[in-house]
């Protein structure tokens, strides 16, 4: 029964969205972190999605979501003059992570909505399959 592929498709999307939620949580947790070394300061991370269909179905048009990787934001880190900070460098500067809290909150809402959508898809399809099973009873 071809409807079973929906579980793979929606499942892959749920997996991708949960990774996105995890990354957002990590970004928000590190939003205010500072470091004396601009190379070592936390940078915001973003997952990269792409669609794939090789293994799921022979049918073109039905594709799941694949996680291609997680990239670090290249936005500049904020420089803050704070000579009393224990991590401050020789000029008295610390570097603050480039996490944009507003962006992350929006990402969180979007990820949770998409996750829910896919749960609904699975529920509806499960109903349809169960109904099909009881056909002719």
């Amino acid at each position, binding site marked *: 029964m*071809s409807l079973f592929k929906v579980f793979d498709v929606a499942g892959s999307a749920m997996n991708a969205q949960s990774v996105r939620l995890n990354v957002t949580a990590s970004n928000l947790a590190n939003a205010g972190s500072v470091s004396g070394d601009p190379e070592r300061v936390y940078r915001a991370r973003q997952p990269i999605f792409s*669609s794939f269909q090789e293994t799921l179905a022979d049918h073109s048009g039905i594709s799941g979501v694949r996680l291609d990787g997680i990239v670090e934001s290249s936005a500049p880190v904020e420089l803050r003059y704070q000579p009393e900070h224990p991590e401050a460098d020789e000029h008295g500067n610390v570097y603050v992570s480039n996490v944009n809290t507003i962006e992350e909150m929006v990402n969180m809402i979007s990820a949770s909505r*998409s996750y829910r*959508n*896919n749960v609904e898809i699975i529920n*509806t399809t499960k*109903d*349809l399959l169960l109904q099909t099973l009881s056909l002719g009873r």
Partner: protein
Amino acid sequence: MEFQSLGIHEQALKFRALRNQVLSSNIANADTPNYKARDLEFKDALIGAQSGQLSLKTTSELHQQAWSTVRGSGRMMYRVPSQPTLDGNTVETDVEQAAFAENALQYRASLAFLDGKLRTLRYALKGTD
């Protein structure tokens, strides 16, 4: 094996199942950059099912039928979005959700029709409910 007595509903059910997959694939890829939303046209599938087969004209036995004309499948078309997006994704979640709900309802309708047909057959065989 196909039962003639089940009418068009068997193929309608297949079409609905396929469309369910295409729409769920759209919703799954709502956040995938450059993903293009697709949908199936019911009209094409109906014409294909009614005329037995909507087929390409073949002049040799070696000629192959195009995939899109295979019975009960219908053509896969790209959706035209009403609003552009920055990442090249053409999925509009509300449109897809409405189409998905509609399709699920039509799947249930096809199931109900099939159920009625089967009930009728059983009644004819047994003579009682």
